Structures are given as structure tokens and as C-alpha cells.
């Protein structure tokens, strides 16, 4: 496994700058997730590392070697695409063994067997090695596709939304599995997704992309707790962070220049009060918790409460915020003197 460094890389398609001056280091053994909506440039960045695209400016270093001009085959990367493309005429075993049988690699059949069997166990497909690749469920096919990448030991694994075509339950399972496998192998991985849950739960570090620019890189906790701007703040959390104009609540300790305040659902505290400014308009059950949807002076708020608390539509409340985030007119996060427990 190796470190991959993207250094001031820019990629244009005609007039469109898909990737703008991005610098990002994927340290050896880490799983870095690129998160952003469609068109943010995350797949382009991945393809640049793979060598499927050539940058217009900047350098890509793999294992301390300048790989910018190298063709994909020389870069020592494995790519998993969103749509699994297995060889339909081959068995699961032969699909998994395929990358090792490339003439340039010259791996012995005995070694191939050992590695295929190990990977098949990892992705839990070992009971179907003899099956034809077409006689698998969607989830199984995607596990084979992931396994086919894992069977090699490249400098870096590149994954483009590998779980997005699966149903929710399988996605949740594979999320944990893939992270475990990555940690187990000590693999370096660059992983692209638009699913914030995948980013939060799997990443060692997350890179947030917005219109081709990398706006913040940090651990999931750093990004969640200390977003650099309102855009990043809105990327994580489900339901999203509550955003209110600064005068919507009596703000104590708001820094100069703050025009809006953000509070995550679990950081909005309600106190029942008949003359309170907020009114409960809907109670949404999760089972373990409830989301309360509130209206306050024309603004919408969502808070997280215990199901033991008897909130009903129509009840009124006073609202206070914990760990609020303040943003200036440009949407940038303003520093505050925090009085929070360590």
C-alpha cells in the first residue's frame, strides 16, 4: 500500500472546469471518501488518479513516483465501478482470478487459488465460487466486483459509488464489511460517494467537493462538528442542520458579523411553554427517537427528542441551541469562544 498525492490538479472539459486546483493526500492505509453531489467533480478526480483522464495542470504522485503521465496499466491501481461488470461467461472463481491471470502479472495458479479463496471469504461469496457469474443476485455480483479488485494488492483501491446500486439493507451491511476489510488489509482507498452516511461511517477522512473545488478535508467528526462553511455543514447530518437567521433567536455570544446560526437536530433543546415561540407541527417516529418538526416565526426547525417525552402537534415550546455554529454573509463559519465540555 502506498501514499497517493494529488497536487494542484485541474481538469477542464471544454469550458467546464470539472476539477479546480485540488490538492489532496491519501495517506497509506487510510480510507479517504470524496463526498459531493452529482457534478461536483468527484468521479473525475478518481479517474484522474486511475489515469483514465489526464490533468490539464498539476501532478499525481503514487508511492512517491510521479505518475501524471503514466498510462492506467502502469499505475498499479484497482478500480471498482458503480455498475458491476463481471465476465458473464466465467464462474465467480474465474472472475475473481482474472486480474491475477493477466500475462504481465505471472502469478502461479496455486497462489491464485489461495488469494481468490481468501478474498471470497472476505466478501462472503466463498460458497458460490463455482457459480456462473450471471446466476447471482445484485448484491452478490457487486461483492464479486469488489472482490475482484481486492484480489490484487495495488498501491491504491479506487471505488466509485460501489454500493449505490444495492438495496438499503445490503448497503448497510456491506458498509461495515468493506470498512472492516479495508482496515484488515491496511489498504489505501479513495472512495467516491454522494451518500453522506457512507462517508460518515466509513471514512478515515472525508474530502468535501463543491463545483470542482475541495472545500474541506477532515475526519468525519471534524467535518460534522467544525464545518468550514454552511455548504459543508449542510452536507452531513440527516435530517440536515437547522439554519436560522441570527435574529430568529435571542443570541448570546454570537460573534460579530454573524448573519445566520446553525444547529444540528440533536442540539436544539425544547422547553414546554404555552407562550413559547415554536409550535410542534409534526412528530416523526423513528422508534428509538422522535423527530419533532417545528415552526417558529415562519422558520422551520427539526429536533431530536426521546419518545418518552410527550410532544404532540400544537404544543408550544421555547427553544435553545447547544453548540451553535455561526456563519457570516458569505456562509463562512465564524470562530466562537466555546464553553463546551471537553
Amino acid at each position, binding site marked *: 500500500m502506498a501514499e497517493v498525492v494529488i497536487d494542484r490538479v485541474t481538469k477542464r472539459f471544454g469550458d467546464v472546469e470539472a476539477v479546480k486546483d485540488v490538492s489532496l493526500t491519501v495517506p497509506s492505509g487510510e480510507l479517504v471518501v470524496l463526498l459531493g453531489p452529482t457534478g461536483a467533480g468527484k468521479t473525475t478526480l478518481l479517474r484522474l488518479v486511475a489515469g483514465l483522464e489526464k490533468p490539464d495542470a498539476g501532478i499525481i504522485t503514487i508511492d512517491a513516483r510521479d505518475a501524471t503521465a503514466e498510462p492506467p496499466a502502469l499505475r498499479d491501481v484497482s478500480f471498482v465501478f458503480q455498475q458491476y461488470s463481471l465476465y458473464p461467461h466465467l464462474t465467480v472463481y474465474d472472475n475473481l482470478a482474472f486480474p491475477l491471470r493477466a500475462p504481465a502479472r505471472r502469478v502461479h495458479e496455486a497462489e491464485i487459488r489461495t488469494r481468490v479463496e481468501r478474498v471470497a471469504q472476505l466478501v462472503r461469496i466463498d460458497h458460490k465460487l463455482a457459480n456462473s457469474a450471471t446466476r447471482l443476485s445484485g448484491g452478490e455480483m457487486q461483492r464479486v466486483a469488489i472482490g475482484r479488485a481486492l484480489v490484487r494488492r495495488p498501491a491504491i483501491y479506487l471505488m466509485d459509488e460501489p454500493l449505490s446500486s444495492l438495496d438499503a439493507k445490503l448497503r448497510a451491511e456491506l458498509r*461495515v464489511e468493506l470498512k*472492516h476489510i479495508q482496515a*484488515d488489509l491496511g489498504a489505501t482507498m479513495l472512495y467516491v460517494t454522494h451518500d453522506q452516511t457512507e462517508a460518515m*461511517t466509513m471514512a478515515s477522512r472525508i474530502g468535501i467537493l463543491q463545483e470542482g473545488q475541495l472545500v474541506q478535508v477532515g475526519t468525519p467528526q471534524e467535518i460534522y462538528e467544525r464545518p468550514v462553511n454552511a455548504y459543508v455543514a449542510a452536507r452531513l447530518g440527516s435530517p440536515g442542520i437547522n439554519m436560522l437567521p441570527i435574529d430568529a433567536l435571542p443570541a448570546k455570544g454570537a460573534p460579530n458579523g454573524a448573519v445566520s446560526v446553525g444547529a444540528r437536530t440533536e442540539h436544539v433543546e425544547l422547553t414546554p411553554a404555552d407562550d413559547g415561540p415554536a409550535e410542534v407541527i409534526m412528530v416523526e*417516529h423513528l*422508534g428509538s427517537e422522535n423527530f419533532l418538526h417545528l415552526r417558529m416565526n415562519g422558520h422551520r426547525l427539526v429536533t431530536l427528542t426521546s419518545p418518552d417525552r410527550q410532544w404532540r402537534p400544537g404544543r408550544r415550546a421555547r427553544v435553545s441551541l447547544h453548540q451553535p455554529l455561526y456563519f457570516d454573509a458569505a456562509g463562512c463559519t465564524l470562530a466562537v469562544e466555546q464553553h463546551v465540555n471537553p
Partner: protein
Amino acid sequence: MAEIRLDNLQKRFGDFTAVRASSFTIADGEFFVLLGPSGCGKTTTLRMIAGLELPSSGKMLLDGDDVTFKRASQRDIGFVFQMFALYPHMNVRSNIGFPLKCQGVPRREIDARVEEVAKLLRIEHLIDRPVSGLSGGDSQRVALGRAIVRKAKAFMMDEPLGALDAEFRHLMCVELRALHDRIHATTVYVTHDQVEAMAMADRIAVMNHGVVDQIATPQEIYDRPRTMHVAGFIGSPPMNFLRFHANVAPGAESVRLNGETIPVPTLHEGVANGDVALGVRPEHVELTDDGGIRGEVFGAEYMGTMQVVTVHTKHGPVKARIPSSRPARIREHVGLRFAKERLVVFDAVSGRALKSCLFEETIRG
């Protein structure tokens, strides 16, 4: 507005029984969700209520009238399907107004009602647009509008949000429920997504293999699941099951699991030397150094303030929802402790929950 009553309604397709004798009543104005995996009979049930499918036996009453053998068109029911089939050559106004036009409602009244509905759905600004350029959400709003414009006795919705992406689906859930709270029309809603069901329903009927396992409010279903299927279908992540072999006597206040005594709500039923499963919700699992059940951390999923930690134990994987402030490293050995008063013991063969004092609260509460 109407009450819907199903009396021993059954549906067979050849040898296959899609829906087994179900009886339940959907109250006037209720938002009622039929929830279950694909093939559980939920859509067939909905189609029988709507009159698109005739039952093999049993009765169906709409507002007290026996409509078992009446056609869909005679039942006065509005529909919303997953694939919003809008008329592509018409604008939003004509799409919503179409059912009224078919009924021969005068033009001026159609206009008034379409505008009222558009306002209700907050799509007034789109009313003269062609439907071809609309976003998925707006298309679905138009489809909803076309259903509710008729002021039918009840509305049937078959996975209406299934085609939308996760975040947007959640937004539409909130909107749909808010709409329901404004018009209070009896609604039967089919979905396989427990999050949707929990978010919107007044009551949920959880179905499995053509049988209704449990009908109750979302919180009741979550806190006191009657079967392992219900417990394992609801919650994200769902309830954990620790499977073991045991002799459980009625009156027991604990179970013996691998030599460990686990306190449980007082049981009123027993299992003589059989397979049982201890059901515990992830938020009722605590990681400790000294807990009796031991395991190895397989993975930790950061979710913000909370995290979900997967622990592999001898009895299977257990997920714990705990504060993110507690570090959990892969391969770390940990002990587990459960919140005694929230545990459910299941007969693992029948899948049924053993009666315990946990379930008594239902009657009192």
C-alpha cells in the same frame, strides 16, 4: 371520508395464498400503513380494498356498506402509484383536473378545485407548466394532486415515494403527512420501507407471508414487537437477536445465556428446552469492561453524536448505538450490558415473543 373494514379477507392465486384471512378496521381519517417485504401480500391487500382484485373469500366494508364485489370505479377511492403516470402532453392544471373533467364537473368548478389542491400541495407556481420538465418530487406532487382533487372516500397509495432518492423521500414523507393532517382523508399506504411507515403512520400493519403479524402504533410496534419478523423489520439498525438454547420457565426474571444470567422483564410464558432468541434494540446495548456477554468489535460507524458499533459475539453480531465519545477500535474486546426492562424473549422456532410484563404496559398505557 370513510371507515374501511376487512372481515376475514383472503386471496388465493391458484395454490398460492397471497393474503390469509385478515380482519382489521381502518378508522375514518386514519393514515394506515401496510408494511412488509416484497411478496408479503401488502399490495394484494391494498388492491382488494381498492376493488382492483376480488377476494377469494371474506368481506370488505366501506363506511358500513358491503363493497366486496363492487368494482373499483364504484368504490369512490383515489389512487397514487409509484410510477407517477402523468399525461405528458398536458400541463399541470389539466393533469390535476383530468379526473374531474371525466366526471363532467363544470369547468369553473374544476378550475377552483385544481387551484385549491395546487395550493395545498404548494405547486401553485407550476400550475400552467408542462409536466415534462418537472422534477421527480414535483411530478409526484402533481400525481398526488390528481388523486386528492376528487375528494374520494379514501386514498390508496402504493409505494408512491419508491422512485425518489433517500433524502428527497424523507422530505416527501413529511409533506405527505402534513397534507394528511390538513385533509384528514382515510389513507391506506403500502411500503416496504420501515422508515416511511414509522414516520407517517397512525398505525402500521406489519405483514409477512400473507399474514398480518401485528397492527399497532409506530411506537408500540417498535417497543413491543410481537414476532421476530416485526422486531427484525423495524428499526435502523433493526433489533439484535442473540440465539441460544434454553429452558425458560413461566415467572422467570432472567435467562441463562452461555452461563451468564441476563435479567429480563418477568416472563409469563416459558419454553421447555428449546431454541430462544433474546431481542435487544441497539440503543439498549451498552459497552462495558465487565459485561457478561463478551465479543470483539468488528466495526464502528460514526453517525455524528452517536455511533453504531458492531460487536461479534458467540451468539451472533450485536449492534450497539452509543455516544461517539466512547472510542471503539476494530478488534477491541468488549463486554455488553443490556437495558433489562426493554428486552424481549422470543421462541425462536415459532418466532413469537414470549408474554412478559413488558407487554402488560400496553394494556395499561
